[in-house]
C-alpha cells in the first residue's frame, strides 16, 4: 500500500515507513536514544530525498524526546539550570546547522558531507561502544548506572536503577571559582551547540553524542545527563524542524506522522525487550548496529559506481 508524500514528492510504501518508525522506536526504547542516526539513512535508502529525510526525522526525534523529557521531568531527573544552557546553545547550533545544510545542498555538497559525517561519527561511536561493552562483559560484572551508560545512554533497566534525581548541578558547588564556572558554562554551551549543529545537519537528535559528553567529559551525574539532554533535544529538534520547513520547505508532515506512529509502537516494544537484557549486551548490540550503518556509508563512498561513468548527479535546483 503506497502513499504519496506531498513534500518529498515521491510515493513510498506505508508499511515500510511504519517499519522504519517502529525500528527507530524499538532502538529508542531499548537504548534510550532518539534513533535519528537510524531513521535518516533508512529513509534515504527507501528513496526519500536526503534533505527531506533529515528535516522530517527531526520532527520524529522531537516527538520521541518530548515523551522522554516529560517522564524525566516528573521523575526529577532534569537539572534545569544546565538545561537552560543546553537548550539555548543547542537551538543556536541547530539554526546554524540548518543554514549550513541549505548552503551545502545548493552547491551540491550536501550528500557527500552527510555521508562523510555519518561514516566518521557513527564509526567512532559504534567502535567505542563495542569495545567498551566487550571489555565490561569480559570483566564479568555489571557496572553501576553511571558506568553502565559509559558510551551512550542508560538502558531502561539501568536508568531505573539510577538515582531518581541528582540536583548537584542545580546547587552550584561553592568550591568552584568564577573562572571555573565560566569555563564549565562555556564547555556545556559549546558541546550543546555542536550537538545541535550536527543534529540539524544530519537529522540526528544528538542524544547519542551529548550524553556521553555530559557524563564522561563534563562529569555530570548520569541521571541528570539523560534527563537534561532529553529536554535539550526537544528544543533543538523543534528549532531544527521549524527552520528546515521555513528555509528549505523540506519537512513532510505525512511522513512525519507515519514515522511517529511507528516510533511510538516500537518504543513500547523496545522497553519491554530492553528490561530483560543485560546492559552491556544491549550496548554491544547498539554498537554493532551503529557500525553497520556507518559501514554502509563507507562502502558507498569508497566504491566506484558500477557503471563506467565515474560521475554522480548530486544536487538539483530546489523545486
Amino acid at each position, binding site marked *: 500500500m503506497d502513499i*504519496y508524500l506531498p513534500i518529498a514528492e515521491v510515493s513510498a510504501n506505508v508499511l515500510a515507513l511504519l517499519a522504519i518508525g517502529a525500528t527507530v522506536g524499538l532502538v529508542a526504547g531499548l537504548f534510550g536514544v532518539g534513533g535519528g542516526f537510524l531513521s535518516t539513512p533508512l529513509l534515504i535508502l527507501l528513496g526519500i530525498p536526503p534533505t527531506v529525510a533529515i528535516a522530517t526525522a527531526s520532527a520524529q526525534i522531537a516527538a520521541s524526546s518530548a515523551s522522554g523529557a516529560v517522564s524525566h521531568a516528573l521523575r526529577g531527573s532534569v537539572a534545569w539550570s544546565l538545561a537552560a544552557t543546553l537548550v539555548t546553545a543547542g537551538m543556536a547550533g541547530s539554526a546554524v546547522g540548518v543554514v549550513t545544510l541549505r548552503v551545502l545542498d545548493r552547491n551540491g555538497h550536501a550528500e557527500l558531507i552527510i555521508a562523510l559525517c555519518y561514516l566518521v561519527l557513527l564509526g567512532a561511536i559504534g567502535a567505542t561502544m563495542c569495545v567498551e561493552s566487550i571489555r565490561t562483559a569480559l570483566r564479568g560484572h555489571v557496572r553501576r548506572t553511571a558506568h553502565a551508560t559509559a558510551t551512550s545512554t542508560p538502558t531502561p533497566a539501568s536508568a531505573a536503577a539510577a538515582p531518581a534525581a541528582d540536583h548537584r548541578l542545580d546547587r552550584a558547588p561553592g568550591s568552584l571559582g568564577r573562572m571555573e564556572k565560566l569555563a564549565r558554562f562555556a564547555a556545556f554551551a559549546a558541546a550543546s551547540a555542536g550537538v545541535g549543529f550536527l543534529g540539524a545537519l544530519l537529522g540526528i537528535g544528538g542524544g547519542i553524542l551529548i550524553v556521553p559528553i555530559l557524563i564522561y567529559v563534563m562529569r555530570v551525574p548520569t541521571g541528570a545527563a539523560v534527563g537534561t539532554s532529553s529536554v535539550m533535544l526537544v528544543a533543538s529538534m523543534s528549532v531544527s*524542524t521549524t527552520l528546515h520547513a521555513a528555509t528549505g520547505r523540506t519537512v513532510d508532515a505525512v511522513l512525519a506522522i507515519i514515522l511517529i506512529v511507528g516510533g511510538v509502537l516500537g518504543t513500547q516494544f523496545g522497553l519491554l525487550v530492553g528490561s530483560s537484557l543485560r546492559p552491556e549486551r544491549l550496548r554491544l548490540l547498539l554498537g554493532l548496529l551503529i557500525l553497520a550503518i556507518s559501514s554502509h556509508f563507507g562502502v558507498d*563512498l569508497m566504491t566506484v559506481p558500477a557503471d563506467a561513468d565515474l560521475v*554522480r548527479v548530486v544536487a538539483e535546483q530546489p*523545486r
Partner: protein
Amino acid sequence: MRTGRLLLAALSVALPAAITGTPAQTASAAGADLTLAVSAPVIRITSNYTGGSVTAFGTLRLPAGESCRSDIVVTLRGPDESAVVRARASALALEGGEAPVRFVHVASFFKVAATAPLATIGTAETRAELGIDVDASLRRAEQGPTRAGAEQLRAAVAAWTHMKARDGLFAIAEDGVDRLDAVLFAATFAIPSAARVGPYEVDAFAFCGGALVAQRAALIQVYKTGFSQSLFEAAQRWPLLYGAAVTITALGCGLLANAAFGRLKPK
C-alpha cells in the same frame, strides 16, 4: 529582389502558424497530415498516487503516391530543472579534482519513442534542433564558471542519463511507437511518482525519407490535488507557520504517546 523572395517564402510558412497557432510544416511537407492527441491531458496526484502513464496517439497521412519511408518520433518532456554533476575519482571515489558540470534548464523528465533507431531518422543536426537528441540538448544546457572539457562533459552527460534512467525519468524506446494501421500510431509513456509536477509537452515529429514533414504538440498537466495539494501549498506559502504546526503536532504526539502508555505518572 532575391532577399525579398526569400522573405516572402519564409512568411508564407510562418503566417499560417501565426494565424492557426499550430506549428508550421516545412516547405517540403506539402500534403503530409499529422494529428496528435493524448489519452490523459491531466494527471492528478492524490494521496494514493503511485505514478501514471499517458498514451500519445495520432494519425499520419502522406500525400497520395508518396513512397518514402515514413518515421514517427514522439517525445515527452517534463518541466525544466538544473542539475549539478560531480565527478568521483576512481581512487578513493570521494571527489574528483574537476569542477562540477552544471546543466541549466534541462528537462527533469524526458522520454523518446520512435518507429526506428534514432540514428536512422533525419540528420544529427535535425535531431538536435528538434530536441530529440538528449546528448545535444544537455551539451547546449551546460553552464558553469568554466567550460567543461570534452571528456568531462561526455561523462557528465552519460551520468545524467544514467541517473535519470535509473529513476524512471529518462528512456529512449526506438521501437516505442506502435503503428496500429497504415495511418494510426500510438506511444505510451510511464510517468513515475517521482516525476515533477507541472506541464509536460508531447511532441510528435513525422519524417518522410529522412526529412521532417510535419510536427505537432500537445500538453499534459501533472499536478497535485486534494490534501496533497493543500499541504504542499501550505508548506510553500506559509513555511514558518507550517513548520511550527508540524513541530507542535510532533510534540503533541509525543506527549500523547506518553500519556497513553501511562508514563506520565511519576515513578
